[in-house]
């Protein structure tokens, strides 16, 4: 498949440098490396985000079981926030389920871009369990790190990364629930802000120009579509901005050597 006319090939076929090939000795090594990579800033950020979410559940009158269940079973902070907000404003159960599902459509594209990078031998039904560990934090780190990880060790690395993120989100939600009301509002303000800030900062690490254009256009179209229709705005702005970025890349950028990288 890696013909010279096709600049982008199956990522698992990308030849690796010597250092990358020898990065992990075995799957266990890769798994623990994933845990270690998650245990720094990503876990701290997610922990803070989930604490903020727990506090939000408490201050809006939900019980601790409901609030924590969303972290355990959904593990998708934007969807969880939508669920709480729509329940507060009195939407029907069906409308809530549909809106949350729409915010989760990003997982379709996240999975489709990340999972083909696993080695063929790992791509079986067990991925239907592993995929629950996929969230934006683990996706952003994996997309960056996979280039330097041998294909057959990528799944172990991803599971280590995702598992730690998932497991800390439950105690963090419970902690936030019981902390709410104890910490001053200024601290809560900081906690609420940490999630969008983290997402924004990871954008500066995105290298390919097609994805940079997509990010820029997403920032423009996001608010516009949000005003037009709140529930579907993520999906529509993603499709419109992403497609324009793809078109710009295909029509203009690929013809210029050097810009493509």
């Amino acid at each position, binding site marked *: 498949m890696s013909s010279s006319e096709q600049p982008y090939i199956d990522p698992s076929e990308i030849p690796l440098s010597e250092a990358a090939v020898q990065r992990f000795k075995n799957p266990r090594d890769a798994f623990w490396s994933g845990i270690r990579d998650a245990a720094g800033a990503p876990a701290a950020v997610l922990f803070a985000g989930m604490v903020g979410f727990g506090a939000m559940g408490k201050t809006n009158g939900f019980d601790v079981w409901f609030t924590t269940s969303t972290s355990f079973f959904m593990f998708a902070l934007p969807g969880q926030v939508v669920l709480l907000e729509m329940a507060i404003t009195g939407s029907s159960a069906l409308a809530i*389920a549909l809106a949350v599902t729409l915010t989760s459509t990003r997982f379709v594209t996240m999975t*489709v871009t990340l999972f083909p990078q696993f080695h063929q031998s790992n791509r079986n039904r067990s991925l239907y369990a592993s995929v629950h560990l996929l969230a934006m934090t683990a996706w952003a780190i994996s997309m960056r790190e996979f280039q330097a990880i041998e294909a057959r060790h990528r799944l172990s690395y991803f599971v280590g990364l995702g598992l730690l993120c998932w497991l800390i989100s439950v105690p963090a939600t419970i902690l936030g629930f019981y902390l709410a009301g104890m910490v001053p509002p200024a601290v809560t303000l900081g906690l609420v802000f*940490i999630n*969008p800030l983290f997402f924004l900062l990871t954008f*500066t690490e995105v290298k390919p120009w097609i994805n940079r254009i997509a990010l820029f256009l997403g920032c423009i179209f996001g608010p516009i579509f949000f005003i037009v229709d709140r529930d579907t705005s993520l999906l529509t702005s993603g499709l419109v901005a992403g497609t324009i970025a793809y078109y710009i890349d295909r029509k203009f950028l690929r013809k210029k050597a050097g810009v493509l990288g």
Partner: protein
Amino acid sequence: MEALNQMSESLSGWGLWIALVGACLGTYFCRAIGVFLSQSINQESEIFRWLAAVTYAMVAALTIRLIVMPLGLMATVPLWVRILICALAIGVMVSNPAKRLVPALLTGTLLMVGYGVIR
């Protein structure tokens, strides 16, 4: 308290848990569909490139919405304060992207806490 009363009128007890089950199933469905589609997509590089662009755009739309058009507590902070803090945090980040994620995050978060204290 007003929000709480509204909630008890429309969604309470079982209705709330049914909404949760629906939300969980919908979220897992999106993840599972991704796995299903990824089985057949690895060779089609054009679709792969397009989907990556769509995902990044979607994530950008979500982020900018959380910053520019927030709901709840964050909406009480003026827009220019939110943008200024973001700009300062990005400034810390790009000064050395390899090592400065945590310092940049701390800068932004502490500035926001600081604003909350002095306002």
